[in-house]
């Protein structure tokens, strides 16, 4: 597979996670579907995601730093991806802000667990260690995120929020499977000591 295509596909997954389809309109989604949602509770929901991500991130990075065979990182990838894919479907079932805050924490935990495998793939597979090579890649990913944001708004406007969440869940599932396949290939192609 072309390096650039691979970089964009990998970046695609995380932009879907972080900025993607629902992020620009997440606050409106909460206000429309959850009766008790206020701007204050929307801020708390966002904080729940960030706190769970920032709290777990150092421990996950430390535990996978010397993972010479990569099996632990791969297990974390599967577990994290499962939680991330679960989040949009759980949001469909949310009835009050407490549900949303818990779902945001699950989502943050998922991102924290999937992150080391993603960064390892970016570093090793795409050969993007050099900062100067990362600039066009970042620009391509940002443009991709812009396109995805418009697509998310379009789906939410004309098909409704549940359709957007189903679409988001299925897309994330596809991205997670793609990541898992690429990581498995990386393990087979790279000598075990260097994985």
């Amino acid at each position, binding site marked *: 597979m072309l390096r650039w295509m691979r970089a964009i596909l990998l970046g695609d997954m995380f932009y879907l996670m972080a900025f993607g389809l629902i992020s620009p309109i997440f606050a409106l989604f909460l206000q429309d579907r959850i009766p008790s949602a206020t701007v204050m509770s929307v801020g708390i929901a966002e904080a729940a995601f960030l706190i769970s991500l920032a709290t777990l991130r150092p421990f996950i990075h430390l535990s996978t730093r010397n993972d010479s065979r990569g099996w632990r990182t791969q297990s974390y990838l599967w577990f994290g991806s499962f939680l991330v894919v679960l989040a949009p479907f759980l949001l469909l079932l949310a009835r009050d802000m407490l549900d949303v805050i818990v779902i945001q924490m699950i989502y943050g935990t998922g991102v924290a667990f999937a992150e080391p495998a993603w960064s390892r793939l970016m570093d090793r597979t795409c050969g993007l260690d050099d900062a100067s090579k990362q600039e066009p890649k970042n620009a391509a990913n940002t443009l991709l995120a812009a396109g995805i944001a418009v697509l998310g708004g379009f789906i*939410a406007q004309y098909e409704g929020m549940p359709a957007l969440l189903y679409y988001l869940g299925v897309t994330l599932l596809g991205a997670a499977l793609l990541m898992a396949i690429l990581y498995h290939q990386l393990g087979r192609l790279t000598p075990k000591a260097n994985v």
Partner: protein
Amino acid sequence: MIFHRSSSILAAADLVAVSAFGLLLPIFAVFLRDTIPGVTLLNVAVAQAIFLTSKAAFDLLFSTFVHAGNHHKRSWSAVALGYAVMAVVPLGYSLAHNMSHIFLLQIVLGMGVGLVGATWHDLFMASTDSQLHGTVYKIYNTAVAFACAAAAILGGYLAYNFDYQILLYTLSGLAACACIMTLVAAAMSPALKQHRLPRN
């Protein structure tokens, strides 16, 4: 000391600026719906897309510009100018009446973020030991995430209990503080001092 004092001030400036925008970003869609008449979900998403496109374009443009000439001088100027532009945008939000104003402001915000994004990382890492780059960056990312979490709660509190105007003025003031901190860091930067010496 892991890095020079000017890099510490630069990191603090970025933390202040990122936290400032963390006050508004989680509730930006609600802010638009409450203050601009006729906002739709598609409009909000297009505003976000315009910001991201502008950021990507200006990031590449300024990165090329900065690396083409006097690297240190242009980098420090770009970061300070970027924060100044970011400080102006919230004032524009408070005066906006329709979505075309918001779209225009999103382009300007993308320019500010692009200016900072093109140069900030190089400046921050310049005085750090290359073996510590990964660790320093991870610690910094974690600090940013906690700061953004606190800012999201504070932003929601300000908007819920007071007014969007107060939130926007706070945001603008914090971005202006980041600009001043960058200018102070630039004055202390050893690379710029060395650059000034041959003139005497």
